[in-house]
Structures are given as structure tokens and as C-alpha cells.
């Protein structure tokens, strides 16, 4: 789970960070031809036996990592981040929304769509992550930053004089993920396709 949590953090860093970390650029997909032509020929899959009975005796779990083709840690980070993006797109159409130019739409038009985007993305958060403020207490209230605080948890704004505790105004209470229940990802699925093309027949 900690790996998924890390993947989530990486995702947020990459999505919202000002600069793409050089390590991350390596994972950008190679420019490929758009998927217009027929999909590349795959090795013909063995025809699965027709099942008259469901899996009554569950097969043993797939062998642990040693026997399976190794998926690199970097690949896992990338897949985790893309899977979360796919979820936000599927449930809340987040990518469609972010990539659509807003010029020319009235606030009312945008507002109507945003309700659904909000509801869908919120559902993803509720289902998969438990969030709580890093610093409890009302925003805009005076708070004390105790001795021994973690600068990664509390970001000081302005000059800190002397030794903690510091007193200041809580501008943003921060968010901490206390539990991440991201979906487990099956192997052999291309995560780069965060939303498949849809063709109605």
C-alpha cells in the first residue's frame, strides 16, 4: 500500500509541480503513431476453455514476483499515477474538463458541468482515500507551531525568529492521506490509455 501511496504522491507532484523532475521525464511514453490503424498483431492467445462451471476451485495465486516478468519500480509508479488519472477521468471526466478551453462559455454553463465533475472526482477520493487536515483547528485562527515540528508537515511563511514554538495564523490546514485504498492493478493492461476511444455500432 505504501507503494501506491508513493505513486499517488508522485502523481500529484508531477501533475502540479512547476517543473517536471528529470527522473519523471524518462517515463514519458515514446511518441507513438496514433492508434488509427489496426492494433499491432498480438500473439494469438490460447483459446480459454469454455467454462460450464465457474471457477469453483480458485486457482492458486500467480507465483510471486521472481517467476513473473519483472515490472520495474518506475513502471509501477507510472502505472499507479496513470490509474488514478484514469479513475478521475472515468468517474469525473477530469481530463476532458481540464483540457477543454473555457473561453466562450458562460459561468453558468461551466457551473452546470462542474457539479458533475466535482461529484465524480469526489467519489473517487471518498472511495479510495481517507483525508484529514494536517493541522486541526479553524483556518484564520491563531495557532502554535510546537517545538520539534516537521517542516515537511508545516510550511512556515515569513521569517521565523528564534526557536519554536512559533505563533502564527493558520492559513491552510493542509491535507494528509491517512489511508489509501487504491485499486490493485492487473498485469498486462496498458495504463497509458486512460480513456479508450468509444465507437457506437
Amino acid at each position, binding site marked *: 500500500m505504501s507503494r501506491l501511496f508513493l505513486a499517488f504522491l508522485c502523481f500529484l507532484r508531477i501533475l502540479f509541480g512547476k517543473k517536471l523532475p528529470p527522473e519523471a521525464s524518462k517515463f514519458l511514453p515514446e511518441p507513438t503513431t496514433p492508434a488509427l490503424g489496426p492494433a499491432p498483431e498480438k500473439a494469438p492467445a490460447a483459446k480459454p476453455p469454455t467454462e460450464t462451471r465457474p471457477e469453483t476451485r*480458485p486457482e492458486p495465486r500467480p507465483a510471486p514476483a521472481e517467476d513473473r516478468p519483472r515490472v520495474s519500480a518506475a513502471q509501477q509508479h507510472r502505472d499507479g499515477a496513470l490509474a488514478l488519472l484514469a479513475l478521475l477521468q472515468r468517474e469525473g471526466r477530469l481530463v476532458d474538463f481540464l483540457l477543454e478551453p473555457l473561453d466562450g462559455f458562460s459561468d453558468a454553463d461551466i457551473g452546470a*458541468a462542474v457539479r458533475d465533475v466535482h461529484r465524480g472526482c469526489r467519489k473517487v477520493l471518498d472511495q479510495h482515500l481517507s483525508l484529514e487536515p494536517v493541522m486541526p483547528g479553524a483556518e484564520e485562527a491563531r495557532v502554535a507551531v510546537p517545538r520539534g515540528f516537521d517542516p515537511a508537515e508545516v510550511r512556515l511563511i515569513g521569517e521565523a525568529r528564534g526557536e519554536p514554538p512559533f505563533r502564527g495564523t493558520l492559513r491552510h490546514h493542509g491535507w494528509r492521506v491517512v489511508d489509501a485504498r487504491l485499486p490493485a492493478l492487473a498485469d498486462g493492461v496498458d495504463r497509458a490509455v486512460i480513456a479508450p476511444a468509444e465507437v457506437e455500432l
Partner: protein
Amino acid sequence: MKILGIDLGTTNSALAAAEDDAAARPEPIAQVTGPGEIAARTTLPSFLLLPGELEVPAAQLQLPWSGPLRYAVGEFARDRGAELPHRLVASAKSWLCNPAIDRSAPVLPFRGAQRELERDMEGGERVSPVNAAARYLAHLRAAWDDAHPDEPAAEQEVLVTVPASFDPVARELTVVAAREAGFDRVTLLEEPQAAFYAYLAHRGDAWRRELTPGSVVLVCDIGGGTTDFSLIEIADDAGNLVLERIAVGDHILLGGDNMDLALAALVGRGVGRPLDALQQRALVHTCRRAKEQLLGDGAPDKLPIAILGRSSKLIGGTIKTEVTRAQVEAVLIDGFFPEVDADARAAQRRAGGLRELGLPYAHDPAITRHLAEFLARFGRMPTHVLFNGGVMKAPRLAARVVDRLRAWAGRDVEVLAGADPDLAVALGAAHYGQVRRGKGIRIRGGTARAYYIGIESAMPAIPGFTPPVKALCVAPQGLEEGSTVELPDDELGLVVGETSVFRFFAAAARPDVPALVTDQAGALIDADTEGVAELDPVEKLVAADADHPAGQLVPVRLEAHVTEVGTLELWCVARDGRGRWKLEYSVRERS
């Protein structure tokens, strides 16, 4: 040994686990939730998707305990299945109790009149209603085993719930499905009773203050696709409170999905342009939320409704409309819960000459009329009501039912606070497992109806006149699990080497039909008595052996046995003591 309670629902299934000294808790169910994504959910949508290789790649359907699969059950099956309706099995449980089809034959996904065409369709795997139910159960079993490798589900005590209205055939088929899923031994429990057990477990000892001798509780279970009523009476037996399930309603195919569709149709008309299948589905989802909000406490006068554009142009393609509280009240409260009197009766569909095979959906959408009819049939008015099922999350719908009950009864009818309506049945089933181990009070139930075997009167043949059929009561209503009734000798016989077929009937005791009230085993009534319904026939092929040469007529007497599992068995016992044969339920299509 743990106790597993399984709610095998029409639209959602759930799993709960209990131990001797630990209360029942819902068990998360790992399932495919998106392409190649596996996550745990509290319920397993009872949908089976059987896609072609070009529709959903097998790799997207693999589970932690399987390789790539050619089918999926659960959330992704439901969501992706909406785009592939020809590959989706839904409401398998309603098919399980539909005598119009052969329930052990692969007929699902059902395509009605197109059945002949689709032999030419490529790759369309079909399953039987029994097999579909087995796959849901097998998934629950595999998900449990994956999470609890040291306590395999098949080695625990397993209880599976069925609608109270399930006939003996559908109960038997549920047991067959469980066996197919690897549960060799299960016990059946009626869903409304399970909901009541969940209430008992939820309230602890406080229920003894809420319910007193003479109380009659209506369990009103309105799920996504079905509505089920039961009455449970509280009586005093030598100073001890006893609970008895005294009445069970019919299987009504009417529920929350009908309401969401009705509201969506109304809102869709206001849009002024055609919606495609996916937009229609999004609209139904939106309407479900609107229903709960606009029928809640402190509801706004209207809610904005947006249907997002289908293409990547999200905002540009969005359709805006709104739904008002007045509209929702007119469509849902007055349409589905009209203010009817106690003597109202649900409208019946007139038997048409030609009717497409399919699920026998309720013809009358008015749930209050079905309820009035149910209560009048059994002549009892409840003092309390226990709601179950997702529909009753809308407070004003529950309020309308309570309002009608009070008007009909002419006195107060209290609402009992039950457990989470989505999980109550599974929790209650697990609690019933504890009760069976002596920890808690048990509801006396027994057979939901009285059962009859058809006997043709011996009469000379007259052209144009079918000899009247008598119905011989073989099992009275309320026959408890584990008990057997032997019928007095009758002129019944099995022909060796031929399949003997007996017509089979059921009836629930009704004060307005005196013949049915006290029918005990051995009673003989007319098969066309009001309230007697014909079920699938029962049959037996007695193979010839040394004792019984082919063609011989073996005089038998009947025995009815309600098993500990909760199924009804009918046995023919040779009067000379040289043989016993169990009658089999026929699930073949009736012509």
C-alpha cells in the same frame, strides 16, 4: 468455524461474517471495478458480463486469484455491461423463479423473441439462471478465500438468503447453484426474516421493550427490482416471547429501478433532444440521487440536472435541465405510493393471447395497492413496520407507507429502526447462524405456503370437458425445518419404467378462502379454489429392477419432508415397503 451470511440479491449481493462470540460484520468483496482494476466494495452487484474478446480483453477481467477471465461479475460487469446489454446477465434471481423458462438451460442473456436468431451470433456464451447465481456465489467464495486463506469459505457454516416468496423449485435451484459454486452445504433463510434478525442483532435486548405479545411486524423490503412483504407476530408462550412468521407475500417484480426509470423518462422529455444509451444511463443515476434529495427532509424546491456531453467536449455538450419537487412527488409518491384505501387491489395483467416470454414484471406500479392486497389477504394489520431495501432511504416514501398503514389500521403503526438497508440481509443471515447455535431468539417460520399434489378425478371421458383436478395437501403451511409428514394411504401409484408426473400446487392461508385456512396434510380441495397457484410439476422415473418389473404399478403413499437446509422434499414410499423414491422438481419449460 465461522458463520458466513450471503445475501444473494437481485441487483446487489453482500457477505457478512460472524463468530460464536463476535457480532456479524460486513465483509468487503474484492472485484473488478474498472478495466484491470481490482478494489474491495461492500456489495457485489449481481451482474454477469460475458463479453467477446473484441469487446473486453481478458486481461482487463483478471482477479488476484485468477488468470485472465472471459467473464466478470460485480461493479465493472454492471457498468461496462450497460454498453453491452446483449452480453449482460441481470436479475438472474428473478429468472431463477420464473417458471416460463427452463431454468437449468443456458438462456441468459435473455433475448426474447430473437432467440432463434442468435444461434447465428458469434461467440455469445450463454448461461443458465442457476449457473449465473453460481458464479456470484463462486465469486464471493473466492474473494473470501483470497482474504482468509486459512479459513476457506466452503469449510464455514454458510447461510444463503432467498426471497420469502421463492417456491420449492427456486429454493432447490438456489441450493444447486451453491453446490455448483463449491458450497456443498448451505442453509437457506428468507430475506425478510434475515432483515428482522438484523434488527434483533442491531437493537440488542432493547427489542423486548419495543415489541410485546400481540405485536405484528410488517417487514417491507423494497429493493432495486423486487418488493417483498412478510408479517412476523410476537406471541407469549409460557412467559417467553416467541416470534412467528405468519404471512409471506407474492414475488413482485417492482422496485427502485422502476422509480428511477420513471423519473428519468419525465426529465428526459424536458430535454428536447434524444439522449444516447450512455446519457440515458447517466440521467437515471442522476435521477436516483434527485429522488433521494427531493424526497428527504428539508428538500429544495428543485434541483439542477446536467447531463455531461458525451464527447471530450464536456462543457460544450452538456445538457442542462432541472427537476422540481412537485414533479418528483407526482411521479414517485402519487405514482408508486398512491393514497389508496385498505380494500384496494393491484391491477392484474389480463392474459394476452400472445405474450413474449420474459420476466413477469408487476403490471400495477402502485406499491401501496400491492401492500393493501397482501394485508387484506391475510387479514392482519401490523402494529410495527420494519423497512429494508434501498428505496426506503427516501424518507418521504417511507412516510407515505406509514401514513397508509396508520389509516388502514385506524391506530398508530411504529417504525422499527433496522440496520443498514444495503447490508441488513447479509448481517441478519450471519446472525441467524449464531441463533442456530443457541445464541438468540429464533423466528418460527416453516414452509411459507401449503403444498398440494394434483389428483385427477376418476370420471368417464366426456368430450370438451376436462375432468376436475383435486388438490391433495401434502405439506401444511408452517411445517418446520427437519419435520416430516406422512400422508394417509391414497390411491397413488408410480408406473415402473415410465416417468410419473404430478401436478403441484401452492396456496397461502387466507381468511377469505375458508378451505385454505386450516388445510392439513391429507386435506383434499378443488385445484381451482381461489388462491391456489400451480407450480412446476414434480416427477419421478422409477427404473425397473428385480423387485419392480417394468410396467408394474407400485402403490405408494406420499411423505413430505422439510430439510434442515430449508427445501421441501416429496417422497413416494412403496406401500409394501420395498422402495422409496424422491420426486424431482421439473424445471423444464412449460408449454
